[in-house]
């Protein structure tokens, strides 16, 4: 037996039961789903009828619970199920939700919440004010530890092959913290400026806002923050890490994968050298992407982020074997040679001068050896982005006519639609279902291409319909230059004798760790994936660096935590949480006009202004709540206190008895729309007023939410959602009359000039001193109107008009004007506990509270032997009655365990 008693819920009843049992010597496990114990009572202003401070009563009890030697407290945890065992004891499954804060290290200083960039409604203040994703529930919380409200990965983060935390930098940019945003990106990937221009932004495709009124301009935000940072920091702010670990890693290839791996390894203290065959580093960024999309000074600045760490890049150095690197003392090798070998068509005339592959063509242009195309005809063959780029480049080089021939239809073109449209706007002619079958030349020089039309046939293995040549459609087309863009091959042939390869020429690796057949060699990027996106190559670089580090530290790679099993939040859940989203026009892309852009290699895409970008970032829905911006980590004075790699912790415990103390729910006022809550700003609930009156109140005093004015004429509407068949709750909630009278008295103290009217059906003041308390309120000047309120509406002057039936005086329908309306909401059963036991063993009463089988003579006993109920889980009760009831449940549990004869 792990514990004598499991108590579910640490509100006032759960705490009381825990203390009673603990004082009797029983070992208690007290499980609370919130981050603090105290339940709803700790949130109240005062208690009736004594007007004692609720906090002053609660906090000593909370402290006693936390420090009691026989009580084990487990907060932010939920009981997933309880199974009765044959011997009369129980087995319970308890899951501790990750707080992402090490409770042993957290000092409760609150610096994390001050730094946090995500604001959400504070449930502990009944939605009257914002809290942060990183938060301490309330000032008297026990334990007073921060919790990070993180629901998983945001879709933008999850969809990024590079693992860049887009939500994080968006929320930092939204807060105007541009340099922090840039630095956060640098944690994930160093090629910020390049990604900001050349990434195809799968994050934007997955953005939840995209399914509402248009995606967040995530790449535009990245562009803004990288431009902002680079303008202010022409050179990186950091240098070579002081601590080097003495290990050496060689990287083959200075493309996105190689640069990223080198960067991440150098940050960990490795000495890294990159070997690059080309004259300059950058790989595809340098040679494969035209400068109108990615200016080369941006690539240079991105690469400086890598070399500033001491990474050496040796260009014009071709590596054709791994073995010599091992002999040179490298402890590990990362092979990231890319995919720069072009596929050929295998047709006559491909070797003519004037027939080039797209990489060769783009490379020549990007290194300043552009061919003279003035007045010439250029034909590009292919349908991917690698065909669009040379076509648009040819336009800029003055070609008179630029054709793209593609053997399928537009629908099958792999190129992005916006790229195709951009090319067409610039004058590129698309010739679909057409392909050259031979190139014709004279004296070794290209003069024309013979082309044939195609027709789409049956789908091939890729699922696309196969092109079928149409005999008789051959045509000779005079051309000056042909650029073949029909695909690239991974550059793995030099290593095929040393490392295992796949049939398609890619290297065989463990897809999680990127280990090759040689334990000291890791591979990633296009040599593994085939031609892919920059972001994917960067992701491979990150993955390789992580596992090379593990390998060189002698760790077991099968225990890697690179891919943490953290779920991605569902878009539908985000939209449901948001309830409604008001339309906000998406930020339009800004591009040079086609007539202007096709005359030069000037960047097509224009940057957003600061105002545009903050507006754009402000449209973010904070899908995962926590954005992972890490502002909390930077603010936290304790190292390693906040960790985003925490996972839920599940355990099973055996217990002798169970006490259900799960409390109550409050009536949802949205079910009484005629009272205007949520629609009318100056209609609030009783719990909201209690928060406004509490010492830890969300406003500086009692103020109207609509404009911050002190109210001077307040109405209370009793029986909101209780004793009301239309609200599906016929029960009296027992406490609403008294808490409303309590609040009225407190308001008269806080706002002596305010008028207070309580609309009631009948006042139920049945406890000791309750009626006196009611009479006292009347004597103080609280105005009681016996009348059922029909509806509340807003008048033109912003005041609230209350329509009510006057039941006591002259009768009839009347109206009254107030400047604040408080709905005294009723209590409802919390049905959570009923599902914890198998086969509906835990019975509910007719009102869905946990049933006490013999309520009158055997309080707390439920339908399951050994399971007891305490407090409002079994019916509406005030605080003194809840405490009494908890005492009864504790006594019942104690007797049960003694009879069971088994103690922990």
């Amino acid at each position, binding site marked *: 037996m792990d514990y004598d008693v499991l108590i579910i819920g640490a509100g006032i009843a759960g705490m009381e039961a825990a203390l009673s049992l603990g004082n009797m010597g029983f070992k208690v496990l007290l499980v609370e789903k919130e981050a603090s114990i105290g339940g709803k009572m700790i949130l109240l202003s005062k208690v009736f009828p004594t007007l004692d401070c609720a906090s002053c009563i609660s906090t000593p009890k909370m402290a006693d619970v936390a420090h009691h030697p026989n009580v084990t407290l487990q907060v932010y945890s939920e009981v997933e199920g309880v199974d009765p065992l044959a011997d009369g004891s129980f087995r319970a499954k308890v899951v501790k939700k990750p707080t992402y804060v090490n409770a042993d290290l957290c000092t409760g200083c609150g610096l994390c*919440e001050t730094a946090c960039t995500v604001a959400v409604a504070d449930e502990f203040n009944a939605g009257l004010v*914002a809290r942060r994703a990183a938060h301490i529930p309330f000032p008297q919380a026990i334990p007073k530890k921060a919790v990070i409200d993180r629901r998983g990965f945001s879709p933008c983060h999850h969809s990024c092959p590079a693992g860049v935390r887009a939500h994080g930098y968006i929320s930092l940019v939204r807060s105007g913290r541009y340099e922090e945003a840039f630095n956060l990106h640098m944690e994930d990937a160093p090629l910020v400026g390049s990604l900001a221009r050349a990434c195809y932004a799968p994050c934007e495709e997955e953005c939840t806002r995209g399914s509402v009124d248009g995606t967040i301009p995530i790449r535009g935000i990245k562009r803004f923050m990288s431009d902002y940072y680079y303008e202010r920091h022409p050179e990186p702010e950091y240098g070579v890490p002081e601590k080097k670990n003495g290990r050496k890693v060689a990287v083959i290839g200075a493309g996105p994968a190689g640069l990223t791996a080198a960067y991440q390894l150098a940050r960990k203290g490795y000495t890294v050298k990159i070997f690059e065959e080309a004259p300059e580093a950058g790989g595809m960024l340098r040679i494969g992407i035209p400068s109108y999309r990615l200016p080369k000074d941006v690539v240079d600045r991105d690469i400086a982020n890598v070399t500033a760490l001491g990474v050496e890049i040796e260009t014009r150095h071709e590596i054709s074997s791994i073995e010599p690197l091992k002999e040179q003392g490298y402890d590990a090798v990362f092979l990231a040679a890319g995919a720069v070998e072009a596929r050929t068509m295998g047709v006559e005339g491909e070797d003519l001068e004037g027939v080039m592959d797209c990489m060769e063509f783009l490379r020549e242009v990007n290194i300043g050896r552009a061919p003279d195309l003035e007045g010439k005809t250029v034909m590009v063959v292919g349908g991917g982005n690698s065909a669009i780029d040379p076509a648009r480049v040819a336009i800029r080089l003055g070609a008179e006519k630029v054709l793209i021939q593609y053997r399928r239809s537009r629908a099958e073109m792999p190129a992005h639609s916006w790229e195709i449209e951009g090319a067409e706007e610039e004058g590129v002619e698309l010739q679909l279902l057409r392909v050259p079958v031979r190139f014709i030349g004279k004296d070794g020089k290209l003069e024309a291409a013979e082309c044939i039309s195609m027709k789409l046939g049956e789908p091939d293995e890729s699922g696309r319909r196969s092109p079928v040549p149409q005999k008789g459609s051959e045509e000779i087309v005079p051309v000056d230059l042909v650029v073949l863009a029909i695909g690239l091959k991974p550059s793995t042939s030099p290593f095929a004798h040393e490392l295992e390869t796949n049939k398609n020429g890619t290297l065989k690796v463990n897809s999680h760790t990127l280990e090759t057949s040689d334990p000291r060699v890791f591979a990633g990027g296009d040599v593994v994936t085939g031609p892919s996106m920059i972001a994917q190559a960067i992701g491979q670089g990150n993955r390789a660096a992580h596992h090379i580090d593990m390998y060189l530290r002698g760790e077991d790679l099968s225990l890697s935590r690179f891919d943490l099993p953290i779920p991605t939040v569902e878009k539908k859940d985000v939209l449901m949480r948001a*309830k409604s989203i008001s339309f906000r026009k998406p930020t339009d892309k800004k591009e040079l006009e086609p007539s202007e852009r096709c005359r030069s290699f000037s960047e097509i895409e224009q940057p957003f202004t600061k105002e545009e970008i903050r507006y754009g970032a402000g449209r*973010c829905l904070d899908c995962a709540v926590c954005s992972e911006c890490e502002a909390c980590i930077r603010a936290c004075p304790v190292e390693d206190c906040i960790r985003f790699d925490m996972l839920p912790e599940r355990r099973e415990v055996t217990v002798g008895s169970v006490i259900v103390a799960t409390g109550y729910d409050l009536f949802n006022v949205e079910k009484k729309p005629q009272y205007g809550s949520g629609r009318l700003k100056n209609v609030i609930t009783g719990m909201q007023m209690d928060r406004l009156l509490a010492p830890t109140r969300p406003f500086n005093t009692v*103020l109207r939410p609509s*404009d*911050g004015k002190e109210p001077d004429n307040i109405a209370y509407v009793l029986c909101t959602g209780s004793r009301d068949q239309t609200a599906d709750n016929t029960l009296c909630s027992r406490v609403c009359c008294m808490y409303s009278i309590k609040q009225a008295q407190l308001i008269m103290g806080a706002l002596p000039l305010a008028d207070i009217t309580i609309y009631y059906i009948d006042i139920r003041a049945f406890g000791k001193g309750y009626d006196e308390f009611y009479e006292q309120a009347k004597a103080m000047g609280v105005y009681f109107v016996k009348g059922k309120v029909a509806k509340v509406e807003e008048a033109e002057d912003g005041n609230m008009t209350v329509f009510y039936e006057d039941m006591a005086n002259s009768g009839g329908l009347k109206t009254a004007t107030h400047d604040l309306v408080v709905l005294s909401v009723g209590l409802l059963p919390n049905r959570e506990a009923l599902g914890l036991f198998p086969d509906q063993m835990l019975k509910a009463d007719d009102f869905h509270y946990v049933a006490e089988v013999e309520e009158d003579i055997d309080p707390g006993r439920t339908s399951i032997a050994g399971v007891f109920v305490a407090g409002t889980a079994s019916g509406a009760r005030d605080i003194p009655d809840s405490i009494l009831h908890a005492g009864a449940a504790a006594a019942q549990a104690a007797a049960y365990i003694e009879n069971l004869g088994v103690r922990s």
Partner: protein
Amino acid sequence: MSDAGERYLGEVLRDEMIMKDSILAVLEEGPKTVPEIALALNASEYDTMLWVMGMRRYEMVIEVGGAKGDGYCQYRAIKAH
């Protein structure tokens, strides 16, 4: 989706992160009430109330005494921010 006039609470609260700099800039002129800040921002008083109270909670602004004769409190920026 609703029109821009009916904003869900979460949306308004989220905007505090965008608006806080503007609010602090407005308060550089001196203490102001919620309606005065709202007017300066061309924002709704309700939205502004939520932002100002959020900023008060995290010690970016603080009230200057109690409510004045018109029932409104003034708020000023806390210099550290």
